[in-house]
């Protein structure tokens, strides 16, 4: 077990290392002069040369890399010139919004996928199954930003029952005191139910929009697995002991069908945690996706680099957790 974890950890670190090198080199090859961007079009050549030197851009590229990584590990993620702030501050401001949205989107995708997959396979009614499959196709083929605009038009402009693209809270609601920086959690921790409800209200549309494609993907996977498993011989054997349909389904078919979807669910969660530019833009969500896209446009290296490292880290961590989970729930993977 310890050896297994060691191997996983080492390969994870290797992945992060690879990502860091790629990000570093790639961003240095991209055309454009960061010093010129910082100082503006009116700066003299001398000023620009001086700026390049102070930024350390004259050093050999491996030295630049080592300087950067050394600083990164010590908590110095560089300085964002376009925002005039350290990158750490910027990320700290933006990350919680993305994490909260990602978690709710994942929760929606996952729960909806399990419920609908079960509904479409348990009784094998053609109507339910057809509806679920249709929903999955729609979910997979609908561009999320367009779907976002559509639900905004419907539920905000037309019915007026859900808030518009105003971010995480209504303008009149104050953010709860920061503990986890996730508004729903913090509001509950402080017993501010009105704030909690407001935060949930603002999460509904973006979470569904962001979770739609992952939901469609998971429901298809889970449905196919459930159909396969419910034809397995062991289900008949379980039933021959006198076990009812529902119990055999819940206790035997579902866990077996669920196992292969775990890896996919982990990857989806990691991807959601890296933020989504388009959905965040549509809902005016102050998350990391919008920050990164702005930074790319402004050639703000430091932010983009930190983001790439962060999402590599995120993927690695989620994958290690998934591997650990397999150890807990799948005896065949367990190393004795």
């Amino acid at each position, binding site marked *: 077990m310890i050896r297994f974890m060691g191997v996983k950890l080492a390969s994870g670190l290797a992945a992060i290392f690879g990502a860091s090198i790629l990000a570093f080199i790639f961003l240095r090859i991209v055309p454009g002069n960061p010093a010129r961007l910082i100082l503006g079009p009116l700066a003299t050549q001398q000023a620009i040369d001086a700026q390049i030197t102070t930024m350390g851009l004259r050093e050999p590229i491996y030295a630049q890399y080592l300087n950067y990584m050394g600083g990164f590990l010590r908590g110095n993620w560089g300085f964002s010139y376009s925002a005039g702030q350290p990158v750490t501050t910027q990320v700290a401001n933006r990350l919680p919004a993305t994490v909260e949205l990602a978690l709710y989107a994942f929760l929606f995708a996952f729960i909806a996928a399990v419920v609908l997959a079960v509904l479409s396979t348990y009784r094998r009614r053609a109507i339910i199954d057809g509806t679920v499959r249709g929903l999955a196709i729609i979910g997979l083929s609908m561009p999320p930003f367009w779907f976002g605009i559509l639900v905004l038009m419907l539920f905000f402009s037309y019915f007026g029952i859900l808030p518009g693209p105003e971010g995480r809270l209504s303008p009149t609601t104050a953010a709860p005191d920061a503990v986890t920086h996730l508004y729903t959690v913090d509001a509950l921790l402080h017993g501010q139910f009105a704030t909690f409800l407001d935060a949930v209200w603002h999460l509904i549309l973006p979470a569904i929009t962001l979770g739609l494609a992952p939901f469609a993907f998971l429901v298809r996977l889970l449905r196919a697995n459930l159909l396969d498993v419910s034809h397995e*011989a*062991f289900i008949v*054997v379980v*039933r*021959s*002991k*006198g076990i009812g349909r529902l119990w055999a389904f819940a206790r035997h078919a579902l866990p077996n069908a669920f196992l292969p979807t775990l890896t996919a669910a982990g990857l989806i969660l990691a991807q959601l945690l890296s933020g989504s530019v388009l959905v965040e833009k549509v809902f005016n969500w102050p998350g990391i996706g919008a920050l990164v896209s702005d930074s790319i446009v402004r050639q703000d290296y430091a932010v983009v680099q930190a983001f790439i490292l962060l999402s590599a880290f995120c993927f690695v961590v989620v994958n290690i957790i998934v591997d650990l989970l397999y150890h807990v729930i799948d*005896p*065949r993977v367990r190393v004795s």
Partner: protein
Amino acid sequence: MSDSKAIGARATRTSKVEHTAGDPPEAETVLSVRHIQTEFVTRGTVVRAVRDVSFDVKRAQKVGIVGESGSGKSALALSILGLIEPPGRVTGGSVWLNGREVPLRDDRRMGRVRGREIGLVFQDPMTALDPVQSIGDQVAEGIRRHQRRISRKAVRRMAVQLLQDVEIPMADHRLDDYPHQYSGGMRQRIMIAIALANSPDVLIADEPTTALDVITQAQIMDLLERLVAEHHTAVILITHNLGLVAEFCDVVQVMYAGRLVERSGVDDIFDGATHPYTEALLRSVPRSDHLESGPLPSISGAPPNLAALPRGCAFEPRCPIGHGREVCIQEQPMPILLGPPGAEMRVECHFASERYERARAEGETR
């Protein structure tokens, strides 16, 4: 005169078989299957997997059901358990256990019968156990389902005892292991333990040894024989291994195209089958005591399409006796009881009596 002597000899032999098989000399009927019909409907075509099958099984009796693949053996087994899943459906008939009708069409009430009064041992031990649940949990599941008021500890003790009964070494240690940690033969032992957990009156074993090597097959059959003798359990052994039937069973039932075409005592059928299909089936099996030169005979033609069955006898197109005969083409033969009372011989063939008499006459002259 000579006729009655022959009948007398036959009668004594049959009763001897029953006496060794069951504890009470006058064995009572535990399972009655009456006119079971099972159909599978896919895209408008109706596949008639089981057609009007009736038979009785006495306490501790061992009944073999043989037939080629697709003859309806497994469908019959699942029909008796009420486990036919859509698109399949039991469209008619009834099953009686210990004199009470089994609620075949009420899944909830059927759950009280399955596992308690009828147990099932499934074909392939590699896929018949849930891969992510421990063996102990899977054995205990059946016990707990039918014996609600016993403690966790007692259930565990019972599970250990069951595994010891099926000769799994270090049973109390291995209870927490998972199926992939056992070999195929061991898994089949576990299957038997699960099926016998509540000492059912009837055990249906659907090709229990097909997936195993010959040595393991013999061990499993010995084990099964010992256990059903201890529990006085009646067994329905579904197989296409005629050798297994000859060794293990008291009575043989032959299925063809969803119908029970012949039922006979095991000695009678191996001495000389009455139904032409049974005869052909037996001839196509190599036997060490009937060494003949030349290639092994086979049955020409293919089994009928169960979605488009002929009006008359389903075996008519392949039958060496009835092929082309008007009565065989036009009329479904009805079961004919043969032999002395209690001989358990029942054959679905228009020429059954004729063939039976002739065979017996030939036996006399020999």
